[in-house]
């Protein structure tokens, strides 16, 4: 009876506002998240090109820089020191939070959770809508902070106090920082509402037969990501709240014995290290909030396009769980040289290096999935292989950084920058691209152009490695991060100075190439939404439930009854079957064994 009622409910006419703007439909909300994220991603990438130009050609006038920054921040086409820090800060903030947290989870958790578990929609459509609009609002505030007279936040994306607490210390710690904090507070609200919704939906709205052990790895990844988010984001919220109090109410949570701008402050007894502990208690799980959804998406893509089951399904789930658990007890590896007790440091060395084990399991399982497969190189598959490669390359350098003794000399150098960009930036972005290419037909009912996808992938991976591989060497040579230029080395170590400058030019050139490569994607994306060839219902011949819904989106996802699940999602090339795929809603044949 319920389904009949639902059918009637499906066909009511919707106004433009309720369909496209304040929509409760998870598929529309997913698209809204994706569009916002693409926009934010383009902005953040542009910011990075601006500061890359400064690093490669320090002090040289650039029309490009002057075009975007104007006379106030780039008089004569050379950006100011403060603005350099502002660009670095906002680039990091947008990439980490807006593109890879809000954008990645927001898009794909929303799109795929109801479709792959077999639900009509999210548990609460209203909260889901709210989650998007909070995200939108926080994005607007963050972007607005770029246009403030005194500049955006300038204390790095980690906004460590006292620098971020004292407007006398740097101009961006004025209104720009206030906006940053309010934007993040709203962002966190968005993320929490979204995550609660994802968790409830996965736990309660699975269709008949969809046991937890039959869930696609994408859903496992989104589910665990949401749990990590719910447990860690509130801690950042409280850290931000205390920082707001220190800035506005004269409290001394993070401040003690400070003289700044000639003024002797009375705050006493606070600790800047407290902020760092609170920040990284979110900050490290955040890395996995960014990465795990990408791993989930790529697991699905690699299995479908190798026409093979994902190798070690249970080990894959187990390793995600292990990574998620460990991610909560490793945060202080960001703080080895902050003055924290060295014994505490050794504990964190141990827990951090343990993460390498489940990560290694995942990598080998990916590789074994390819072994003896029948690989089809869709653009999504290319990006997935790119992800595995960057996950390896960036992961192994983590072993160096987790080792406190080695971290002493490379902490806060470009080696760190290279490490996290490869392992979490590139891997997550590649996972997100894989997701967009793979599920574009589901989102928009049309196909992306494959050839452009190929060009996009090869330019992106060549550009990306071209940027981040040399960056390791810049860091090992001793280049601190967040330096406006490296002229200081000219005074005492010319050899190192030359290395840094040479490599910085190479890096910037590759960054520009990679950025131009994204134009291909943007064009393909927007063009195909309107003019791409119409998609088939199941274009990749995939097993999961989203491909059993009609191409045209309908409210409630399935026109009739919800599908019943009979098997796991990875019956590809199963011996005894005619086709090389068996969707999850196909009953087991007589005598057929589950995998």
């Amino acid at each position: 009876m319920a389904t009949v009622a639902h059918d009637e409910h499906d066909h009511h006419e919707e106004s433009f506002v309720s369909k496209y703007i304040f929509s409760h439909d998870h598929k529309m909300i997913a698209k809204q998240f994706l569009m916002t994220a693409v926009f934010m991603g383009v902005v953040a990438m542009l910011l990075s090109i601006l500061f890359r130009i400064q690093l490669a050609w320090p002090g040289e006038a650039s029309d490009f820089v002057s075009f975007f920054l104007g006379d106030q921040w780039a008089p004569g086409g050379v950006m100011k020191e403060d603005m350099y820090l502002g660009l670095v800060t906002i680039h990091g903030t947008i990439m980490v939070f807006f593109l890879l947290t809000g954008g990645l989870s927001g898009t794909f958790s929303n799109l795929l959770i109801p479709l792959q578990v077999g639900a009509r929609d999210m548990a609460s459509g209203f909260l889901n809508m709210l989650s998007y609009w909070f995200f939108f609002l926080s994005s607007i505030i963050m972007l607005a902070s770029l246009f403030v007279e005194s500049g955006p936040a300038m204390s790095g994306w980690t906004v460590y106090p006292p620098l971020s607490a004292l407007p006398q210390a740097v101009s961006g710690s004025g209104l720009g920082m206030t906006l940053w904090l309010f934007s993040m507070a709203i962002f966190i609200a968005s993320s929490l509402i979204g995550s609660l919704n994802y968790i409830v939906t996965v736990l309660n709205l699975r269709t008949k037969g969809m046991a937890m052990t039959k869930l696609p790895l994408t859903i496992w990844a989104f589910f665990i990501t949401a749990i990590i988010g719910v447990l860690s984001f509130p801690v950042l919220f409280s850290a931000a709240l205390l920082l707001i109090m220190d800035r506005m109410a004269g409290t001394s949570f993070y401040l003690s014995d400070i003289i700044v701008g000639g003024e002797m402050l009375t705050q006493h007894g606070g600790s800047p290290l407290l902020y760092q502990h609170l920040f990284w208690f979110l900050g490290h799980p955040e890395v996995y909030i960014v990465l795990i959804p990408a791993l989930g998406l790529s697991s699905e893509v690699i299995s479908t396009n190798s026409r093979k089951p994902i190798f070690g399904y249970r080990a894959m789930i187990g390793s995600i769980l292990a990574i998620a658990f460990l991610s909560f007890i490793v945060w202080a590896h960001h703080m080895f040289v902050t003055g924290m007790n060295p014994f505490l440091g050794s504990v964190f060395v141990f827990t951090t290096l343990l993460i390498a084990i489940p990560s290694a399991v995942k990598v080998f399982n990916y590789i074994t999935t390819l072994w003896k497969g029948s690989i089809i190189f869709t653009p999504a598959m290319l990006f997935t292989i790119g992800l595995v490669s960057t996950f390896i390359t960036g992961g192994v350098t983590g072993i160096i950084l987790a080792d406190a003794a080695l971290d002493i000399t490379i902490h806060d150098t470009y080696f760190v920058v290279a490490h996290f960009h490869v392992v979490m930036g590139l891997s997550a972005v590649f996972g997100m691209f894989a997701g967009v290419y793979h599920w574009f037909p589901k989102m928009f009912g049309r196909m992306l152009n494959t050839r452009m996808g190929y060009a996009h992938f090869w330019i992106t991976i060549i550009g990306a490695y071209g940027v981040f591989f040399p960056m390791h060497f810049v860091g090992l040579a001793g280049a601190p991060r967040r330096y406006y230029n490296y002229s200081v080395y000219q005074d005492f170590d010319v050899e190192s100075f030359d290395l840094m400058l040479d490599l910085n030019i190479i890096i910037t050139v590759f960054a520009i190439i990679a950025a131009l490569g994204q134009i291909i994607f943007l064009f393909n994306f927007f063009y195909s939404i309107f003019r791409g060839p119409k998609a088939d219902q199941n274009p990749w011949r995939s097993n999961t439930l989203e491909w059993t819904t009609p191409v045209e989106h309908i409210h409630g996802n399935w026109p009739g009854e919800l599908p019943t699940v009979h098997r796991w999602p990875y019956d590809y090339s199963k011996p005894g079957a005619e086709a090389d795929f068996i969707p999850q809603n196909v009953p087991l044949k007589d005598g057929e064994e589950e995998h």
Partner: protein
Amino acid sequence: MVEKLVIIAVIILGVIAIAQLMRVYEISSKLRKNNEAEISTRDNRLNANMMLLFMFGLFGGFIWLMLTYGWTGRGEAASIHGAEIDWLLNLNFIIIISVFFITNTLLFFFAFKYVKKPGVKAFFYPHNNKLEMLWTITPAVVLAVIIILGLKTWNEATADAKAESIRVELFSKQFDWTARYSGVDNTLGKFDYKLTTDNNELAILTTNTIDTAIQNMESGISGIKALESKLNDTHLMLAPADRNAMVKDLNRKNKLVRLLYQMKGRHDSKLDAQAWDDFIQKDTLYLCKGKEYEFNFRSKDVIHSAYFPHFRAQMNTVPGMTTRFKFVPSLSTAEMREKKNDTQFNYALLCNKICGGAHYKMKMMVVVLEEPDYKKWEDSKLTQTFRDKYFASTAVVEEEM
């Protein structure tokens, strides 16, 4: 302006050109009945070959970088623990670079080899417990070695300094470093940030500096008395905002001066001797080869990080707390210049924690001397202790007043 218009015009024309190309492509693919989901054998092969090509390019680029910049491009460490760190770093690099090559090779090679071939079905292979155990246990064993060696080096590097280590304080502020040597008694005098005055930049604690700070706070140019007289002056018209700022300033100073009087009451003048023999050194930090130094780090304003790239040493400086790090310089500046074949080379102390606009310029030169030269330098400094300089400058201040 014209340039910008031309650029915009070129971009628009470019987009139109691509759109036209797409139209052509669209029509032709409709004719070929290609809906983008079917990947042709040719495209598959092309990408498979690209995988292999890319792998060689990636490895080639890596090897080129290593050859050009000399393994990791770091040069020799100039401290005893630094040499150990470098040894460990090299060992770790050998491990991770092997893993990098092996796994990336497997990945790209499998991607190349197992590309779809007509008539060949994929091998249904959902799991294998033995294999999975293998790649759980192998990394675990390797990591155990890494952890044990790493913790050994870490514990040595961060252990307490020996009693006879030379104590030096490094004081950081936006955007420079100041060193304070502990003088003949090898004990640094105490400090309190409230004692900061023009002739006591490092806020060193002695009976006299407390008095000066109180006097400064009460009767200085913008001290409490000056503020009060301005606020009480009925002839003076103050904008409300200025008045508020002055009241706030006055409250702050009243609070601070109360604390200074408490400090004065508690102060034990026997401690003064520890401070008077300290001497302050700007611009260049002199160290003696082969001696252990314990650095005590302080910050006046925001977090900085004392980063000695050549000595493989680093520690944040945190306002409100003292942090410590020790090392033994093992190569003098002259020796390192010879090794590097660069007569202009110097060691340096840099800031490695974002601290504001001029963060990238915050530096102090470091010079490591052989013991006789160091002694000579130290002797010359021992005649210019904090006591000498302090009383010389207060005398000047008093004369001016």
